[in-house]
């Protein structure tokens, strides 16, 4: 299964793992940023009193949660961006943008659907008295949202957002199917070059674990810090 020579062979291609790590991190970070913005918009749309908006957001969320990620990724890559000729340059000197970008889009659209439900639950968990107090002081509905409701809501849902971020890091591996050079792509490349699969997979496992485990710990730390001062 594992052999010393297998590791030695794999080690020759360790550069691919370094690149894969950078790619996975960029993919996940961009997905979290775009996914969160999309989720916020979707959550606000869904809570809107204007029916078509909330109807659209509901359909979006249900559609993306009820279909496989792989199908969404393929539709985005092979259908949506099929005709659009994306500029083919390389990020960090090796990431092919025309494959990377559809990956970010598909992952963001998918995680946006999940995150929006989390954000909506967070906003709705804030006592309506908070909004009333803010509005009675003359703050607008927008100011109330950003000064009063969202800061409290985000604090409450931070653990759920952290989970989603960890999920994105893991799910981003699916982008290897459209040729994004993330960690699983490195595994496939090394397998092709060395005919070894167990050793590259073991290294990939270790790399993913080292990414996700500290991430959840770091966010747990910030969660404790943020709640300092007003925790019961």
């Amino acid at each position, binding site marked *: 299964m594992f052999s010393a020579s297998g590791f030695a062979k794999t080690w020759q291609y360790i550069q691919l793992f370094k690149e894969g790590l950078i790619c996975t991190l960029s993919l996940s970070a961009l997905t979290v940023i775009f996914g969160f913005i999309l989720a916020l918009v979707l959550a606000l749309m869904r809570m809107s009193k204007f029916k078509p908006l909330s109807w659209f957001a509901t359909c979006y969320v249900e559609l993306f949660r009820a279909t496989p990620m792989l199908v969404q990724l393929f539709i985005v890559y092979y259908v949506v961006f099929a005709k659009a000729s994306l500029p083919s340059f390389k990020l960090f000197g090796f990431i092919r943008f025309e494959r990377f970008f559809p990956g970010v889009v598909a992952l963001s659209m998918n995680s946006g659907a999940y995150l929006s439900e989390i954000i909506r639950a967070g906003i709705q968990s804030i*006592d309506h*008295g*908070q909004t*009333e*107090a*803010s*509005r*009675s*002081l*003359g*703050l*607008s509905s927008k*100011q109330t949202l950003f*000064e*009063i409701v969202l*800061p*409290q809501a985000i*604090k409450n849902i931070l653990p759920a957002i952290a989970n989603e971020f960890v999920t994105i890091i893991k799910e981003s591996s699916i982008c290897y199917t459209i040729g994004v050079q993330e960690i699983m792509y490195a595994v496939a490349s090394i397998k092709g070059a060395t005919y070894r699969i167990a050793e590259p997979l073991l290294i990939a496992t270790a790399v993913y674990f080292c990414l996700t485990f500290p991430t959840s710990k770091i966010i747990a730390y910030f969660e404790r810090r943020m709640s300092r*001062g*007003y*925790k*019961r």
Partner: protein
Amino acid sequence: MATNAELIKVSGLCKYYYNGELKALDGVDYSINKGDVVVVIGPSGSGKSTFLRCLNLLEVPTSGEVVFKGVDITKKYYTDKNGNKVKLNIDEHRRKMGMVFQHFNLFPHMTVLGNMTLAPIKVKKMNKAEAEKKARKLLERVGLADRADAYPIQLSGGQKQRVAIVRALMMEPEVMLFDEPTSALDPEMVGEVLEVIRELATTGMTMVIVTHEMGFAKEVGKQIVFMADGKIVETGTPQEIFDNPQSPRLQDFLRKVL
């Protein structure tokens, strides 16, 4: 009193729920003049809180008018002094009306100072140093100067409500609305909050107070409004209401609470 001192005029105010099955307010007419201290009393479910919450439109009435300083704030547009049709911005009117809630509704993620300075900074564009100076002065007035940097969770109920009152005062409102300000407090903390309201009354602040504290109503109120079943049943001075009630409904209510 002269009509030019009229601050809020409510007419035909109705608030229905479930398509009219529940009539929280059923045709209320009342005028509040500058400097008035109006205390609203009545049994639970009589519409007192709904009436108060309609005054700053936290509750949108089903029908009727709420005219605040000559502007009907229930409408989307109003006509200004020069005869122009202007879109009504409810926030502009709300900032002239302070409100104190039964459950305080302090912002838990901000310190006492943060709670107090938020609206002046965001809405009135006051600078931070100036707002904090003003906040500290007000805190001193209610005996909480040393709690400026505390978070709401670290305060007692009575302290929270005093902070809520000075938070509203930061905006220099022309009228203060109190929605059962002592109902959520432990008995030993009621006094300290009432003391602040009492002191405020002596400064000539216009106030509308919904309360269950009859002794306080009698002492502080200049006008008492008795409500039942969504209607104003009787109004008058504390002496008239408490010592010589006219309607059987009020007589019955007083017999139960006094």
